[in-house]
């Protein structure tokens, strides 16, 4: 039987239907910061259901790390913040009904930029920061009350001032990374309905249990009174994490007494979730022989109007910032900062691309200053087996040098460095977390897997099915993997941070052992990885194991137009053990291509708080025409055989490898994306220096 994805039989959340269902549309604020002073629903056609502030007054606030969000905003804090919603018999009728609802606003001062937002006296997006008590607020949050900083994370390791005193050369530069948009091909879509006081939500989500917890909190229900069923997603890349549209659909369904479906129009996707724009300052010092002596790094993550998972993103941006190097003295300050932009949250790479860009560019600048080969400088300082990271944790199963050597070899670095660049990264995996799975035997020799791992195209169903078949000693077609349903599957932290094949794979091994030891009918397996960091010192265990990769790029620059072309791109990624080779290759290639978009052109452009390019024409994503002339990658396997997730690892090294390749031509770039305008400016700067 041919895969349903090629025959047109694949179904996603947006295809959900229910008897008597209504279609929803959200009414959104046109202002970045305002107060709603009046709502006039008198012109809304009869038969439509309107959700107004009074309909949600009994509902609780939400937010997985900081409880800062309401189902409808009486004081919208970004353009696109939902202020009301409607439901009607068709999507078109709902669109017309939403347009006939009139809202009066009183504008308030807005802060559109992360560095303005941290200035004393900046307008406050939120007056106070209330910590969430959900499972996603698992680390020590450090909101700075009375400011726009909703989380501050620090690493303090060694004596940084002393370290810089020992340095022969010091680089101190500030780098900027633009906001990017996930642009999953399928928009956010969900269907909500109530039955006898129970809420059922079917949706495309990576985080069914976090969503259940949030919905239960909002509607004042026991978590067991909420059922979340995950539909396969037409892409997510972090966009479909935590609560997005589901509470509005559920509140409309409650009022209507009928099922309500909500599918976001394309332009509203950009008002719903983007990637954190960031400013990263890196100060890095080394002795004359290249030995690193100290690093001081500041990260400012712009989380927009609501924190969402921004504190976690800022923390990971911070703890991955020093990179896979031995640096005896390290200080990191990472800030998650509110602005009046649409919320920013999880995005493939989870903050680590932003700090990786800055650090890997700084390493090349330092090599230049010391007159050293950037490859040799990196190899001299890379972490080796058993080394201690700046968090205090020992590093094991270490393959950074191997990855970097492979990348260098692939682009012919040692033959001729001109037009070529390298980068090497580490990336954390969700720590702490839990995963559990049940395996049930059928009477016909088949097995059913009950687990919460969500499918968004990353191939988790296939990989876990293959693992199960191998462990059970059956063909993969004897294993079934139904859609995750919180009524049925055991708890799992979430399908994020490239953790599922590793964590669920280990839970599966335990479940199969349990099944075999107990009569072969049913087995249950659960695993947890422990750890966490002290938020004020950054000491502890940041990651059970680290994702490791390097990239090499070769570029061509048209000095007339500033056009930057990537001729050759190679990544070497440590996989530990490859479970599903085509799937692993697809994840690597997809990560590289998404990295290419972030490197060259993807940028959410804001003016007065408005997204000015909320469509796939003005916000370009990579097409076949944007691929490098030659793009290759390799998956390195290790003797330990421990599976390493591959969902994101090949993304963060791509932009700095390209940036460093451009730098080898004398063109120093500090900001992403590397648009022709920025390349042209770098050409002018270089010419200026020469003159």
């Amino acid at each position, binding site marked *: 039987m041919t895969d349903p*994805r*090629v025959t047109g039989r694949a179904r996603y959340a947006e295809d959900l239907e229910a008897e008597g269902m209504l279609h929803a549309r959200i009414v959104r604020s046109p202002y970045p910061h305002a107060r709603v002073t009046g709502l006039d629903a008198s012109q809304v056609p009869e038969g439509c259901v309107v959700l107004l502030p009074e309909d949600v007054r009994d509902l609780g606030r939400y937010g997985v790390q900081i409880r800062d969000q309401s189902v409808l905003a009486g004081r919208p804090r970004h353009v696109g913040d939902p202020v009301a919603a409607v439901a009607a018999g068709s999507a078109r009728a709902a669109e017309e009904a939403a347009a006939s609802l009139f809202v009066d606003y009183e504008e308030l001062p807005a802060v559109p930029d992360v560095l303005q937002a941290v200035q004393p006296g900046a307008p406050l997006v939120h007056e106070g920061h209330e910590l969430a008590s959900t499972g996603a607020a698992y680390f020590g949050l450090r909101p700075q009350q009375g400011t726009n900083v909703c989380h501050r994370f620090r690493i303090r390791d060694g004596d940084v001032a002393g370290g810089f005193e020992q340095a022969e050369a010091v680089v101190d530069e500030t780098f900027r990374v633009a906001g990017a948009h996930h642009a999953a091909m399928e928009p956010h879509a969900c269907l909500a309905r109530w039955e006898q006081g129970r809420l059922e939500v079917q949706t495309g989500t990576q985080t069914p249990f976090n969503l259940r917890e949030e919905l239960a909190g909002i509607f004042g229900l026991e978590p067991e009174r909420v059922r979340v069923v995950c539909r396969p*997603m037409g892409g997510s890349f972090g966009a479909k994490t935590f609560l997005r549209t589901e509470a509005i659909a559920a509140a409309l369904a409650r009022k209507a007494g009928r099922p309500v479906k909500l599918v976001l129009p394309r332009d509203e996707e950009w008002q719903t979730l983007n990637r954190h724009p960031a400013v990263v300052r890196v100060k890095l010092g080394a002795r004359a022989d290249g030995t690193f002596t100290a690093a001081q790094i500041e990260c400012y993550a712009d989380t927009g109007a609501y924190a969402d998972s921004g504190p976690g993103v800022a923390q990971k941006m911070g703890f991955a910032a020093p990179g896979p190097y031995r640096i005896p003295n390290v200080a990191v300050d990472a800030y998650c900062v509110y602005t009046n932009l649409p919320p920013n949250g999880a995005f493939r790479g989870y903050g680590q691309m932003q700090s990786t860009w800055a650090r890997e560019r700084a390493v090349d600048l330092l090599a230049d200053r010391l007159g050293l080969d950037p490859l040799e400088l990196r190899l001299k300082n890379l972490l080796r087996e058993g080394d201690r990271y700046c968090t205090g944790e020992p590093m094991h199963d270490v393959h950074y040098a191997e990855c970097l050597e492979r990348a260098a070899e692939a682009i012919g670095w040692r033959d001729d460095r001109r037009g070529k660049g390298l980068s090497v990264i580490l990336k954390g995996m969700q720590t702490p977390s839990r995963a559990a799975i049940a395996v049930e035997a059928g009477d016909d020799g088949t097995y059913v897997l009950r687990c919460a791992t969500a499918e968004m195209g990353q191939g988790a169903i296939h990989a876990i099915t293959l693992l199960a078949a191998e462990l059970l000693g059956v063909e993969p077609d004897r294993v079934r993997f139904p859609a995750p349903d919180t009524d049925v599957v055991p708890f799992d932290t979430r399908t994020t941070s490239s953790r599922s094949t590793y964590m669920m794979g280990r839970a599966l091994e335990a479940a199969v052992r349990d099944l075999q030891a107990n009569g072969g009918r049913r087995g249950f397996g659960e695993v947890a990885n422990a750890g966490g960091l002290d938020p004020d010192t950054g000491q502890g265990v940041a990651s059970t194991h680290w994702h490791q990769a390097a990239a090499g790029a070769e570029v061509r620059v048209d000095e007339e137009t500033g056009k930057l072309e990537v001729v050759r791109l190679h990544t070497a990624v440590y996989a530990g053990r490859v479970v599903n080779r085509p799937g692993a290759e697809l994840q690597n290639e997809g990560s590289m291509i998404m990295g290419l978009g972030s490197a060259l052109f993807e940028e959410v452009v804001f003016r007065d708080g408005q997204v000015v390019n909320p469509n796939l024409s003005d916000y370009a994503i990579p097409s076949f025409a944007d691929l490098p002339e030659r793009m290759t990658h390799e998956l390195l396997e290790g003797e330990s055989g421990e599976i390493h997730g591959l969902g994101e690892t090949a993304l963060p090294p791509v932009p700095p490898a390209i940036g460093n390749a451009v730098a080898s031509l004398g063109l120093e770039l500090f900001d992403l994306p590397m648009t022709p305008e920025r390349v042209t400016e770098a050409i002018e700067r270089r010419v200026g220096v020469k003159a």
Partner: protein
Amino acid sequence: MNLRFRLNGEAVEVEARTDEMLHDVLNRLGCVSVRETCGIGVCGACTVLLEGEAVSGCLLLAPLAEGREVTTVEGLGGDDPVQTAFAEVHAFQCGYCTPGMVLAAARLLEENPSPAEEEIRLGLAGNLCRCGSYVKIVEAVRLAARRKEGAWTS
């Protein structure tokens, strides 16, 4: 208006608004693989074949299909060389763009039965895959081309 055309080889008759786009009508007729994604004709997820030509269903007014032949991926039958090559090579991740990609590739091979890699990249540049499965899609199209050619020469 009452709209009549041939869909995947069968005559259909359907009520449609004159300002409706073809993908909406096709969705109503059960061909949900025709996905409106960008809504402005740049992503190719709503690609259908109109008289054998690849067009964007989100830009084509439904009445323009009157009396003509429309093919969606549901009409390829599942054993088209392009479909089987995509499945074998795993030339997709989430699969959302795949129906449009398969149709665009089928049309490309009609026009150019043995395209070079560069010609495949250019020919499919109007179909976006956010998962970034492009490398394997090129591989699948080359495999389909070899198989189609084989059918003529063996």
